[in-house]
């Protein structure tokens, strides 16, 4: 298939990384779409967990919020939020966590807190939510974000959740035993941290995208791996599955806008 949008490519590329053995801590938006496309295509037994407490959920429609009724209705079971963060996330039982953010730096640290100073912000963003502990307690982290100069910046005003910190063995030095961000999936390409420096490096370029486009859309001088591959284009089944669930979702989230 060649008729697909960059966001569709991003979502499908993320879904391909997941397997039946994964226990995923899913976020809203692209991660939720990616995880459910994986579940509906090559990973039917994947375990999806939303931080609202729903474990092993199989939504027919993507949730708008992290706690839509659909998630509980289709879950194997639902626990309290303290239990979710204590036994399941901190307990080390999550293999893969998804994160995104307003801004990311070259070591995959994320900012979703403020633009400007914390005390007098130019833009007050929603904040970290589960991110600080998702980043440290999941086995590995996938990040999905559209590549842009505004989002991929040289220096973050605020580190909401740590990726590879200052690079190198920074995570190990802080006592973390998890891998941290292992992949950043964008709408133009896929990045992976360099084995030693941990700087994000382009390893795969999506169909129809040029190196110049990537360089122009990144806020730091982005590096390319020695071997860069072409991201396989979405298959028909991947694209159909994604579009179907998006269509069902759009339909479900519309309705009369009645106010209380």
């Amino acid at each position, binding site marked *: 298939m060649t008729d697909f949008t960059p966001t569709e490519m991003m979502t499908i590329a993320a879904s391909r990384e997941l397997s039946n053995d994964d226990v995923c801590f899913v976020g809203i938006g692209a991660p939720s779409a990616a995880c459910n496309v994986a579940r509906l295509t090559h990973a039917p037994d994947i375990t999806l967990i939303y931080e609202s407490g729903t474990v092993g959920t199989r939504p027919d429609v993507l949730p708008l919020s992290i706690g839509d*009724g659909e998630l509980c209705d289709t879950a194997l079971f639902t626990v309290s939020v303290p239990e979710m963060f204590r036994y399941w996330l901190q307990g080390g039982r999550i293999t893969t966590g998804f994160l995104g953010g307003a801004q990311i730096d070259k070591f995959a640290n994320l900012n979703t807190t403020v633009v400007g100073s914390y005390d007098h912000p130019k833009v007050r963003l929603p904040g970290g939510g589960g991110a600080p502990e998702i980043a440290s307690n999941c086995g590995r982290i996938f990040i999905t974000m559209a590549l842009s100069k505004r989002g991929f910046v040289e220096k973050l005003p605020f580190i909401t959740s740590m990726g590879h910190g200052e690079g190198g063995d920074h995570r190990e030095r802080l006592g973390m035993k998890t891998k941290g961000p292992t992949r950043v999936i964008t709408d133009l390409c896929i990045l992976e941290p360099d084995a030693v420096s941990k700087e994000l490096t382009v390893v795969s370029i999506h169909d129809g995208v040029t190196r110049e486009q990537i360089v122009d859309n990144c806020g730091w001088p982005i590096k390319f791996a020695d071997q860069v591959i072409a991201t396989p284009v979405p298959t028909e089944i991947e694209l159909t599955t994604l579009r179907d669930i998006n269509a069902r979702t759009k339909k479900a989230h519309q309705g009369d806008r009645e106010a209380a």
Partner: protein
Amino acid sequence: MAKIVSLAEAIGENVRDGDTVAMEGFTHLIPYAAGHEVIRQGRKDLFLVRMTPDILYDQLIGVGAARGMKFSWGGNPGVGSLHRFRDAVENQWPRPLEIEEHSHAAMANAYEAGAANLPFAMLRGYIGADLPKVNPNIKSVTCPFTSEVLAAVPAIRPDVTIIHAQRADRKGNVLIEGIVGVQKEAVLAARRSIVTVEEIVDELAPPSPNSVVLPTWAVTAISHVPGGAFPSYAHGYYPRSNAFYIGWDDIARDRESFTAWIKENVLDARPEDFARHAGKAPAKAA
């Protein structure tokens, strides 16, 4: 024993100016009707606590009822910003808002510690994150056995916690089902508690011996407010109005449209108005 009273009476007797108030509900069972009654009764200088201040706290902040807020994620889920919250933090309108910001894990543990009558909670958290630099209520504690250093936050002990639940029996025992969030912890951590419910029934009849129940002697007041969680939802009763959440973005973006909405839908409205949302499109029962 919980008193079963009108919502006006429950709020009037239990929510006071200056109180630390937690209205909880993790997306599900958010006590909108009760929050609106707090606005109608003109409460002032509240210190609001909530993991996910969504539209309800946007409304309380927008009318100027809050002096401060403790939270871990302040957005309109899946939609974007809370414009009234941003206006308060960025422009101090209608008044400055003191904020104490945490992660979800820290907030959840802090409620849990409150319920367990501990002075603080510990977690493997905040590693490499900047929040501890700006929040003096994030400290550390050292394991006396392994010397590992863990993050520590104070227990949350609200003056009053307000939640919405599916049903209560006539003695005042409460059943909560589905996404139960931190509601049980928030009630047990508080000095006083108010629970609004969809139904009051003769027999509570929890489906499992291990269902989430709050006994009457752990609750202060109960009010029967069908539909009281709208535009959030009540598992087994009615679904979330995602359309309302999407629509709120436009209403709240502008101070005038927000103020007009509050006048029409809160100040000039009554708790009974929520009843039209109750059970009109039953959610799948588990």
